[in-house]
Each structure stands twice: as C-alpha cells, then as structure tokens.
C-alpha cells in the first residue's frame, strides 16, 4: 500500500478522524455552503473577518477523510492571515493537487506549510474535488457569494 500512503498520510488521517475548528462560529461575518455533487458531501465554512484579516474560522458537515482533513487543515492554515494571502494559498493548493498552473505554485508570498501533505492527491484525479471543496467554499464566503453553492468544477 505504498502508493496509498502518499494519499492517506498520517496527518491527513489524523485530521480526518479529529477535525479541528469543527462547529459553528460565533459572530461569523462570512459563510458559504459547498457541495461535491460526485459524492453528495456538503460542508459549511464560517469566517470572521476584521480589518482584512481572517480572525476566526470553522467548518461543519460530513465528508470523506480527504475532504474533512482538507477543511480542518484549511482552518489552521488561514487563521490570522490576510485575505490576499488566503487567496494565494487557495491558488497554490489547487496547483499542488492538480499539477496545473505552475505560476501559482511558484508564488512566494505564502508557504503551503502543512498543506503540502496533499501533494499525493495529484495521483488520484478523482479525489481532487475532495481536497479542494473547503477551499472553493471559503473563497465563495470571502467573495460574499454565500447564496451560491460552491462547486469544485
């Protein structure tokens, strides 16, 4: 199962089992719902933004290990960051898991850090949507598109 361990790394399994920042968020200023039509998974992302900074973040909903871990690690990665940096992280993560958009992967203003754990997803094209659902949803929330269900396609 060596290849599979590239996908299901210990960090992913851990966050999949015990997602961080899971639940409602008091005084949220931004919310959006994301839906993966392929598997029926739904998540909601809440954010509290003040002075252009993501001060608080949480998510709710159910999904596979990859999508839960992605949402959980997202909350850790974006907390305290400026919106511009969050957008940059979104582009970098998307580039990482799809293997496309080399320009985005070379953006140097923010580091992927723990999010690099999702590199193995690239070998599993059917699972890219699982890894990006929470990010698309957060992006919609930050853009004020709460009414629009985030889709990964």
């Amino acid at each position: 199962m060596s290849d599979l361990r590239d996908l299901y790394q210990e960090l992913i399994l851990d966050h999949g089992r015990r997602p961080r920042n899971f639940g409602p968020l008091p005084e949220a200023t931004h919310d959006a719902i994301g839906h993966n039509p392929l598997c029926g998974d739904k998540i909601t992302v809440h954010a509290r933004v003040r002075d252009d900074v993501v001060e608080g973040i949480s998510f709710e909903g159910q999904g596979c290990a990859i999508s839960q871990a992605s949402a959980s690690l997202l909350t850790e990665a974006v907390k305290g960051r400026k919106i511009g940096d969050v957008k940059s992280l979104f582009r970098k993560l998307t580039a990482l898991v799809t293997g496309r958009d080399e320009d985005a992967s070379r953006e140097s203003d923010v580091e992927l850090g723990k999010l690099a754990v999702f590199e193995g997803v690239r070998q599993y094209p059917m699972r890219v949507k699982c890894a990006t659902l929470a990010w698309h949803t957060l992006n919609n929330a930050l853009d004020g598109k709460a009414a629009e269900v985030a889709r990964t396609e």
Partner: protein
Amino acid sequence: MTVAARASAGPGGLDVANIRRQFPILSEKISGHPLVYLDNAASTQKPRAVLDAVAHYYEHDNANVHRGVHTLSERATVCYEGARSKIAQFVGAADSSEIIFVRGATEALNLVAMSYGGDVLGEGDQVVLTEMEHHSNIVPWQMICARTGAQLRVVPILENGELDMKAYAETVGARTKIVAASHVSNALGTVNPIAEMARIAHAAGATIVVDGAQAAGHRPVDVAALGCDFYAFSGHKMYAPMGIGGLWGRRELLDAMSPWQGGGEMILTVTFEKTTYNVAPHKFEAGTPDVGGAVGLAAAVEWIESLGREVLADAEHALLAYAETALLSVPGLRIVGTAREKSAVHSFVLEGVHPHDIGTILDSEGIAIRTGHHCAQPVMDHFGIAGTARASFAAYNTADDVDRLVEGLAKVQEMFA
C-alpha cells in the same frame, strides 16, 4: 468448495470460467492486480460476441437505414429491424413495433414523460413515484409536472428497503394518471412487485411506467406478465454497448401519443404548412439511429439467452447470498437494503470510513465498486447517510471476487484503524 472449483463453476452449473474467457477486459490488471469488477449496476462489461457483432456490422453492413435502395442500406435496415424483433421477443412484446430504440433508460423515461405525460397530465393530476427511484425516473416527471400543473406524489420505502405497499395502495387514487417505478432499485437491490403495482394502478385508471434498467440483464422480463404499460431499459447494463437502449410501450398508447423529437424518419410527408407523422416505432425515432448499437444489443440478448436467463438469475442469487454472508463477517459493516427479494446489488456502509475512501483503497487492490449516492439521493436521505459503497454483480463474477472484496475491506479498516 475449493477456490479453484469456485472460480470455474458457479451455482446451477453455470460455467463461469468459460464466461470469463469471453470478456477481454477481465484480463486487465489494475494497480498490478487482476481486475475484480463489481460495478455492474453502473455498467456491465461486454462479451466477445457483442464486440464482434458490432465490428461485423461496421465492416460488412454499414449504411443509413430506411432511406436508400442500395444493397448496404437494405442490409443495415435488415440488421436494425432484426435487432428490434429480437429485443421485442426478449421482453415479451406482442409486436416488434412496440420497441423504440433510445440511448438508454434515461432517454426512454424522458420520452414517456414528455410525450405521454405531456398528453395526459393536467392541473390537479398526480404522478406517483417511489422513494427509491433513480434520478432518471424522478427529474423527467418533475419537469413535466412543472409544465402541466400536475403534482408528484412519493410512496415511501420501509426500513428494509422494500416499497411500503400499504402506502402505495393508499396513494394511488382517482387523480393518479401515471405511476413510475423501478423494477429493481439500483441503490438497494430491491425487486418491486410490479405485477401487483400494475394491478393497483390500472384499477385506479392510471398507467404504469417501469424503469427496468437494473432488471433486464438480470432476470426474465415479460412485459405481458408484469402487466405494465411502458418498460425502459439500457443496453450497457446488460452486456451491450453504451448509447443504445429500448422502450417498450403498449401499442395503443404509442399510437395515440404525440411525437417527441422531430426530424427525418419520424415523418410521412412534410410541407411547410403541415407534416404527417410516421407510425410507431418510427414516430419516436427521429434522425439516424444507432444501428451498430442495436446490433450489439441484439447480440447481447442472444448471448444472455444462450446461457439462460433463469440460470443466470439463479447463479446471481446464489452469489448474492454468498456475498451477504461474507460482507456481514466484516466488523462494523452494515448492508443498506435488506429486502426479502433482492437482485445483484449489495449497498453497504462501514463504520468510521466514508464510502469514497473505501472506493479509493479498494481500487488500489484492483477492485472496482461504486461509491456515493448512486443517483438516488432521496434513498440516501431516507437512511440519513451521504452515500454507500455498492458491490453489484453480473454473470462473470465469482465467489473469489467476493473474497477479494472482503480482503480489500480488511485493508480499508487497517488504514483507518
């Protein structure tokens, strides 16, 4: 039984080893493992007889049908209409003109909803569906109800995945114009009592449309015995190519129905002032049809009949029972859909592991199953789950395939322990 014996001989004397040799794709290696294909409810693989029939048609007989006077056009027409006769006899149709070629069950159901539904439905009328329908037997009805002012009524399912027949009998009433129900549920494997449902529908003056996509390749289908009015099926779920399927309709209903799509072949005469329509089935087959597909579907029908539908159904039933016991030996596994009469499908959930993750890990072991909502989201909502993992069987599956699945599930649990 030894593994070797189990791999070669199925229950009821079915020579599964011989069957497997007729499916070239079963020699594929997936992630370095021999393929275990358990996604047959989504699409079956194709035997050599079907692949050869399609190739033979294109190599020797191909031309447009019902149009030319030249030899190949006539041969293609004979192939096409011969396929129609073969398929008519396969489903117990009174006449081959009751078979309309379509892309698949989805198109067949859309045709009935738009044409028949459009003709008979009006404000206050009701279309009765079951809660276990595939989206293809829900959405077309929603569309035509929105257009005509008719209403959808949904008959619930019981906890074991069977239709609540008491609720069905209470729901179907004087305002019911159409009942639409699956013969076999793709998500649960439930076999519905179509003959009884048809009797109740007819007593209320309604017609009954049956989605036979999961039944036609797995059990004897006789539309006369079922007593239904329309029966839809897909070729690719019964060993034929993708892109071809059939709709059987009662002759008097087809004759009275409005055409669906307009174009060539469905007309008798066309002027800019007025067009007169061809008779069924041609009235519903606008444009150049998929003749190669029809030939492939007829070859699949012949292939199924050469083995015997009762024999195949018995073997599948025995394999389903074996799989049930084997799956229930997996700790934390729950089968979703435990109807008394089931066909070729086990949907299941595994405690603590999302179906999507099960699917990826099994794939790395060479095992193909379907995961998710199976285009039946209301069923998932009923059971309060986002989706299931589904193993579904066909003529070439063996007890070894089931054993490999169970071993694969142990690896899933090892990963998520």
